[in-house]
């Protein structure tokens, strides 16, 4: 065994490859100007530039186009025939908040209690999660880490996925508060056992929603008065929400819930984003009219009802697109985020263009999360958050990332999975 191990290490040394998860390092700040050339550039706003180049320096994109002048000291990377995309953003995720779903000790995404606006997901974000490296390699470069919970779960933050610690990772700190609206649905027929009391659950749901409203009303009053003998941290945590520096993400799916979500705009003037919205296709005009954006639940889902179009979850994105609702596409969970672009690919197959589908995981997401000034598309002045793929990034046949840059830093595309792959290719003598 020992001999075997020695051989293995020798082999590693020989190939000169870094083969341990712990030695995958966050990249250092961009030093030289980098130019990527001869690529198809998918800007993220619908525009496609054939045989184009992109230049970035000091972490910012400086030029994008068919004819970009190259400077002498720039590092030129010829990505002939490849495709360049904005880094993909995973909204409403628990990346870095959990490592092994079934092991309680690794779960840091849900606090106890109903009203926790002061809870912050960012400080639990684990930059050393082994999952993170498996996302970058597919082109996911940013994520919104989001606390779950009962009613008000706390604030989310946007992180970039290549960092030493959460402080470095923070891309937009405390971008919004999250409200998990209780379900407004009467109980179903049970398969077994007695029928639960019919009205209690809905009544309880309405009471809970009213508790949240009452809480916001008191918070608003508290904030209006500057001086307090006793500080209320929960109310304090809502200042940015009332000043619209934060958004209110309301997690809900069915029409009644979304109608009440719209009312939160009207009563409190919040900037409301619906997270989930699986039935949003039933009321796109209302959403549009009230400027409600939607972080759409994953298209790879079963229809809500047996009568629904079998493809309804695939089609919802295109229906929102057509109605002019600002939306982006999300995926459940943490490790699952690596399939986010395929969710967008499916949405494209069912009624929208590939570039629109790309926007739904890049620029639209950035707009909704309030980070579109710095990312979401490949435009001069924005951060150089860039993924280069040998083919169509939305299709698993051709999603093959050769380079990825976060704020101009070329990040490692290595990960635990590749390492285990190499280890066992070695075992079986496979090339």
């Amino acid at each position, binding site marked *: 065994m020992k001999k075997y191990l020695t051989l293995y290490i020798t082999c590693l040394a020989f190939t000169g490859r870094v083969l341990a998860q712990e030695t995958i390092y966050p990249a250092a700040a961009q030093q030289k100007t980098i130019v990527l050339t001869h690529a198809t550039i998918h800007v993220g706003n619908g525009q496609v530039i054939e045989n184009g180049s992109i230049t970035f320096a000091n972490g910012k994109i400086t030029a994008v186009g068919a004819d970009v002048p190259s400077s002498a000291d720039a590092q030129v990377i010829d990505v002939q025939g490849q495709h360049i995309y904005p880094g993909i953003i995973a909204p409403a995720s628990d990346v870095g908040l959990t*490592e*092994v*779903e*079934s*092991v309680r000790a690794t779960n840091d995404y849900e606090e106890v209690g109903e009203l926790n606006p002061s809870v912050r997901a960012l400080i639990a974000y684990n930059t050393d999660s082994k*999952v993170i490296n498996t996302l970058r390699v597919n082109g996911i470069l940013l994520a919104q880490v989001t606390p779950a919970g009962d009613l008000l779960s706390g604030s989310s933050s946007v992180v970039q996925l290549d960092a030493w610690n959460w402080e470095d990772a923070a891309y937009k700190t405390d971008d919004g508060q999250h409200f998990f609206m209780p*379900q407004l*649905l*009467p*109980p*179903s*027929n*049970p*398969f*077994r*056992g*007695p029928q*639960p009391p*019919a*009205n209690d*659950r809905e009544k309880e749901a309405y009471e809970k929603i009213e508790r949240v409203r009452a809480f916001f009303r008191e918070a608003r009053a508290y904030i209006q008065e500057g001086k307090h003998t006793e500080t209320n941290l929960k109310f304090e945590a809502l200042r940015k929400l009332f000043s619209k520096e934060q958004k209110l993400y309301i997690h809900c*799916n*069915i*029409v*009644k819930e979304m109608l009440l979500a719209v009312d939160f705009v009207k009563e409190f003037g919040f900037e409301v984003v619906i997270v989930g919205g*699986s*039935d949003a296709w039933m009321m796109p005009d209302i959403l549009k009219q009230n400027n409600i954006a939607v972080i759409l639940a994953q298209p*790879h*889902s*079963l*229809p*809500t*009802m*047996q*009568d629904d179009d*079998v*493809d309804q979850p695939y089609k919802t994105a295109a229906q929102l697109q057509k109605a002019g609702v600002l939306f982006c596409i999300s995926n459940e969970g*943490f*490790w699952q985020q*690596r*399939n986010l672009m*395929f969710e967008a*690919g*499916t949405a*494209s*197959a*069912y009624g929208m263009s590939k570039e629109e589908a790309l926007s739904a995981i890049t620029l639209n997401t950035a707009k909704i999360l309030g980070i579109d000034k710095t990312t979401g598309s490949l435009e001069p002045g924005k951060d150089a958050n860039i993924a280069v793929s040998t083919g169509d990034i*939305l*299709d*698993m*046949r*051709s*999603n093959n990332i050769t380079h990825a840059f976060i704020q101009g830093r070329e990040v490692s595309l290595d990960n635990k*999975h*590749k390492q*285990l*792959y190499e280890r*066992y*290719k070695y075992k*079986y003598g496979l090339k």
Partner: protein
Amino acid sequence: MEQPLAYVPGTGRMSHLVPPGLTRRKRTKVFYLLLVVLLAGSYAKAQETFPINGVADPREGCYAFTHATIVKEAGSTLQDATLVIRDGRIISAGPGVVIPKDAVVVDCKGKYIYPSFVDIYSDYGTQPVKKSSQGFRSPPQFLSNTKGAFGWNEAIKSEINAAAIFKTDEPKAKTLRQAGFGAVLTHQQDGIARGTGALVTLAADRENKVMVREKASAQYSFDKGSSTQNYPGSLMGSIALLRQTYLDAQWYKNHPSKEGINLSLQSWNDEQTLPQVFEVNDKWDVLRAKKIGDEFGVQYIIKAAGNEYQRVAEMAATKAAFILPLNFPAAMDVEDINDARFVALSDLKHWELAPTEPGAFEKAGIPFCLTAAGLKDNKQFLSNVRKAIDYGLSEQKALDALTKVPAALIKASDQVGTLDAGKLANFLITSGPLFKENTVLYQNWVQGKRYIINEDGWMDVRGTYTLTLSPGATYNILVKGTPVAPSLALLQQADTISGTIVLEDKLVRLAFPLTKKGTRTLRLSGVISGDAWNGNGLDTSGNTVKWNAAFSKAFVPPADSAKKKADLDLTKIYYPFNGYGWETTKLQQQDILIKNATVWTNEQQGKLENTDVLIRAGKIAQVGKSLPAGNALVIDGTGKHLTPGIIDEHSHIAITRGVNEGTQSVTSEVRIADVLNPDDINIYRQLSGGVTSSHLLHGSANTIGGQTQLIKLRWGANAEDLKFAGWDPFIKFALGENVKQSNWGESQRTRFPQTRMGVDQVLDDAFTRARDYEKQGPGKRRDLELDALVEILNHKRFITCHSYVQSEINMLIHEADKFGFTVNTFTHILEGYKVADKMKKHGAGASTFADWWAYKMEVQDAIPYNATIMQRVGLTVAINSDDAEMARRLNQEAAKSIKYGGMTEEDALKMVTLNPAKLLHISDKVGSIKPGKDGDVVLWSDDPLSIYAKAEKTIVDGVVYFDRQHDAELHQRIATERNRLIQKMLAEKKKGSPVDKIKPTRDELWNCEDMESGHQHGTTDNQ
């Protein structure tokens, strides 16, 4: 020859009139003799053991009901007839029967007499049983908690004897009598085997007097009821337990010494000669019960669930008799569109069609009776019978189903069911024909005792009377209306002046003005003595008068305004019974020619461009260029791709009420085949993703799970027809965290095994027992669990084993080697890449996820390159779903291996077509496009491995089961039907009918780790 029967007074029993062996002449003589004895009423005095507190009050209770219309049974109506009863029994019924001198005569002129109803599915007089709250999070209970020398399983309650626990319950009896019932077969509705039922009357009397037959039936269900024992935890477990109990009981007949005394099995054996009644929860349960009955030579009487009309042909084929409930669903309150969204068309349709069930059974010639079981209020019973009649049931069958049929089914025709001499004096007196809308039940006589249901109207005072006031004038008054609600009119030459008439007991009061415009009222109060009424009153001026009224003319009711039967305009039955079902079960297999497609053959010739494929008689007939169409349906495949149908090696769709038995570490006796759910919408959804066959597995909650079932997605077929013919049987095994209950919470720390070490021992022990069992000689107790394991040892059943980490994979290979069999397939197998060489040497295949990981500890080393490595090492590798959502895009999952490890597109496609076919030993039938193989193909809009590909047509056995064009038409049909039914429900609400709050329709969805009522899966499940 059937002996004539007669009631033997004083004994409470029927007897053969003459002993067999007498000559015909002698018989006749004896018959008359007995008849004389009967009529004379001189028979032995009844005696009883119960002491009397006070003065004895013996009565013979002889009554004669005269001038009645007697319906002895459906089809035998006697006009102006007399019914004579004595001592709780019928003495005679007919026109011109002799009225005994000691009879109390009751004039029933204008009234009808019917046999009281018999309900053979009742829990009357038993204690309601609380359902077990035993959940998957409670600490396990391995054995029965029943005290006494009973069997091992608490849900087998064959020792329960309803007669011994029965206690009369007058309030309940009253509601049943008011609904028309005279006798019920009652049993304790608890458990899988529920013991015996007792036939009792609903008289308000002592238990021993109302009991007609102590053991009249044996009762069964699939529901474990109050049992807190874990096993069985699923429907398939209930079925296995029933089957094993039949076998155990057979074996117990020889008093095996090791078993000792087992009173449950003893009772079970004793009860087998009784009528066997089986309660089901669903139409498909009927076929499940039928299958058990066939295996053990039992014909059950089925207590139906109410949705059997959806599959009448299958119901008729069981040859069973049915007890049909009448608890039709109420309309729902669908006013709020955002609530109505959550009620599926299937539930709306069921609301409309449920009342057609009895009529549909009649039409199909299926014997049935009716029960009040399940009604919230027994007052609904008769109106629901009438509703069933409006929906197609004939009145004659309705009466049979309430009287004669139930009596015959429990072999109690000698006691109840008709008004023949000798039977119990259980009968109804009504105002008119029983099923007419306004007919009133006046009295229900049970065992010769009168129970008044409606006093009003018993005395029909309608008619014309001559009213004489003294002092004063004479008037003609007319009493009209109905017997229950009479009304009064004063006839004054041309005028008819209305007044009021109120009857109270035998008292009457009349009030009316004397002229049309009169404001003053004449008030009379009196007593009715037969046709003569008299009393006192005050005239319009306030003067005292005496009065009498004499009957002058009978009332002639106005001719029935022939009530036009409402045009029902009912919805069609769909197969399956939901929005995407077909309107027929007979789908036509047709010859199909797909022209000019890119054909992925999965054969040596690989991918063929511009190629035609001909499917004839359900099989692939030809693959080539420019094939002649002949009579075939031509489908243009230009620019499209044709692949073999997708085969999902690991699926849990189309399974009902539990995917895991999981309550013991070894449950090889349970079978997914027993619990197929052909109505599962996920069959259709998966067809839309190109899936044509699914291997339905037991879950992974225990080491040796259940037997699996391979199906073809023949949407609309019943369970038998879904099954893939000619496959090798498989069984699910599982290793690791699930079977050692690592993630089940702190309460689950006692079931063996709790470690991978223990998992090994479970396997070693099970196969050792199986080997020893096989060697045992004749007379051994047949053990269904070990039978399945012996099949594995004999290479007749094959294993697909849920497994993750390399140590356990290695372990199972060692166990298999030790016992001389091969592990056919490792499923999930996320660390297969670590031991691919060992798997190859052993001969195992792999069926894995494309890229799942991190969801639990044992998948920390799962990598998306797993499939590629295993394939490159030389294993047969499939990609499976274990998930109803992922299954409809298995092509995409396969394509991930192109990304992770660079597999070729053709090899990737094989992972969801040919390779699973190989793993399932069906690659001679499916998995590639080759002449002779089944016509299971998919036409894709694009390269099937592309994210942009859509299955446009999915064909199974040459039948197009999914087609995008047809699908669009179905959306339209669903919308139209929903609207019609919702409008109908709204109309119902507007009419003032009671409506229920909406209940969202919920579809069953299972995955590997689910216990019953387990995980949450969707919006309507999220509670």
